[in-house]
């Protein structure tokens, strides 16, 4: 396998070439944005201070990258070893996801050269402070966790040290996301009376945490199927199914809690009220939660196609949820609409493309997908 040789490879395919162009365009636009400012490049204004970059690149990106911590918890903290086969790719996706989030955040702040300020000026009673610290620390932890893989190929003498540090890194690496996945939702606690009651809830932090947990297995399913196609590396359907069982369990609890919360806040009336908010809420819950649960319990849910479909729907549902919170749920209060500018969209697309390219490059060169035999070797 290429990954085991010490040479560096990067196969160029038409899709990768397209991704490269998209990432290049985004990089140029990002530099342009940093020079000329936010007003000239985005459709943000005083009514819409937060838009696509916060909504998709940050809030959604962090959730979708949640696969890393839920799989790390299941495979490495609970030592359920059958999941080892997917752990590396899940954690790699997560690392890349967080790096993209950091870039997205960086592009979105006005005083970007001042980004380090909260490290020294502690606004500790801001929820954003918790988000900032946890995301920064967690990205660092993930880079160190990747060190264990990286040193299999480069700087090999460091490998023992990284391997030794893994238990500590893994524990911190599960603890931090638990904190900031919920605090990302809790950012919107301040939007009381502004964010539509279908989404504003005293439990919004818990909802964000739970959805970031169950989107993990879903993302891993989608991603392993894509990787399976690209590298001819198929993960056993049974493993995917038992991973999704964990996700579906949390999703059922999420659904029950959500319904209870709507009743408790007397917000059930808005669910079938018609209009933009109720439609988007029904799409989010129907497509992203209820249908995937149904798929899991019917015979189709035992097949690879069924599981991939369910996983893709869950991921889509979480994307819709985050965009509903950031955009749809705020339209009623703001009285104005917001459509991202072409530059905002191209930068977001390019960031995702860059992430996909990085994933491909690392899979080509490091032992991510096929590392079973390595583990046997160590075990003997």
């Amino acid at each position: 396998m290429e990954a085991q040789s010490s040479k560096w490879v990067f196969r160029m395919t038409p899709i990768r070439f397209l991704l490269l162009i998209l990432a290049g365009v985004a990089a140029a636009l990002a530099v342009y944005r940093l020079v000329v400012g936010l007003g000239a490049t985005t459709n943000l204004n005083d009514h819409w201070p937060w838009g696509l970059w916060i909504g998709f690149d940050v809030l959604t990106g962090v959730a979708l990258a949640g696969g890393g911590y839920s799989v790390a918890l299941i495979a490495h903290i609970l030592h359920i070893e059958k999941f080892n086969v997917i752990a590396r790719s899940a954690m790699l996706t997560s690392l890349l996801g967080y790096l993209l989030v950091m870039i997205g955040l960086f592009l979105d702040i006005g005083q970007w050269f001042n980004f380090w300020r909260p490290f020294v000026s502690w606004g500790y009673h801001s929820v954003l402070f918790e988000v900032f610290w946890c995301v920064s620390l967690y990205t660092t932890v993930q880079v160190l966790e990747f060190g264990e893989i990286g040193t299999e190929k480069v700087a090999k003498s460091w490998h023992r040290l990284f391997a030794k540090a893994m238990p500590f890194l893994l524990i911190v690496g599960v603890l931090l996301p638990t904190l900031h996945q919920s605090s990302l939702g809790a950012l919107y606690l301040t939007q009381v009376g502004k964010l539509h009651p279908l989404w504003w809830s005293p439990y919004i932090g818990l909802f964000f945490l739970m959805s970031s947990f169950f989107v993990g297995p879903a993302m891993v399913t989608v991603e392993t199927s894509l990787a399976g196609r690209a590298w001819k590396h198929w993960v056993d359907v049974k493993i995917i199914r038992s991973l999704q069982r964990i996700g579906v369990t949390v999703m059922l609890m999420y659904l029950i809690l959500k319904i209870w919360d709507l009743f408790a806040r007397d917000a059930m009336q808005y669910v079938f009220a018609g209009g933009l908010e109720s439609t988007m809420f029904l799409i989010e819950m129907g497509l992203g939660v209820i249908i995937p649960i149904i798929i899991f319990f019917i015979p189709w849910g035992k097949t690879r196609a069924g599981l991939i479909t369910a996983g893709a729907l869950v991921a889509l549902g979480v994307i819709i949820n985050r965009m509903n919170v950031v955009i749809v749920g705020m339209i009623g209060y703001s009285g104005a609409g917001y459509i991202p500018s072409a530059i905002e969209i191209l930068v977001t697309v390019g960031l995702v493309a860059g992430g996909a390219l990085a994933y491909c490059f690392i899979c080509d060169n490091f032992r991510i997908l096929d590392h079973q035999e390595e583990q046997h070797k160590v075990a003997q």
Partner: protein
Amino acid sequence: MAYVKFDTPGKGVLVDLTKCVGCGSCSLACKLWNDLGHDDEVPDQGPDAKLSDKNWTAVKFFALEKDNEPVYRFVKNQCLHCQHPACESACFSRAFQRTENGPVVYYPHLCVGCRYCMLACPFDVPKFQWDKSFPLVTKCQMCSSRVDKGEAPACVGVCPTNVMTYGDRDELLAMARKTIESDDKYIKHIYGEHEAGGTNWLYISDIPFEKLGFRTDVTTRPIQEYSHEFLKYTPPVIVAWGGLLSAMYVYTKRRKEVAGKDKKDVPM
């Protein structure tokens, strides 16, 4: 969990909207004192007046009906200087701080430009310099340097019809209550007494506040408390969840070793 607990509510301003004739000298004084620019597209006076990065205060014109008679009212807007400011609790780099004298002051050098303050403010006060390369947030500072010297904010001093009274919030509140109780024309509501936990700028009016562009559904609970309600769980969660994760790690690993399984744990 406020940064500093102040013993006194500090200084404030009472605005009596029935007295305003809409001359706009307050807005001009604000621009002169704070060296703000002018923007033709965003007026600081008239029916379309609104706050912006250049208009820290704006006087909005309303044509309304009262007792079937047309009436005109002018509403001066600016930062309300909350007792428990949402912007202060939202800012992760302490760029907003309420001072002992009452003003909520913005410190540009601490600002990252994340705009969470704009989201958090229940009155939508902070504005952003969208046309700049390195934009800052802007808002009324209640002329804090003047207030610290015992002087009234610039806008208050120039008002020709005494719309605004500057003083201790306690005393202003008592004065406002006396005014609205002794005169039937006033709405029996002091805007800012309880909104968002209380503000240092207070308003009285003879027209219902919701007709004058005020947000009357704003929570009376300080926005800070919503964040605090969540953040207070952070330390116990770190300790409990971190401990539990460590325990689970050690336990499941040990169990596997005791069970005599030949596979050694290989992280990742």
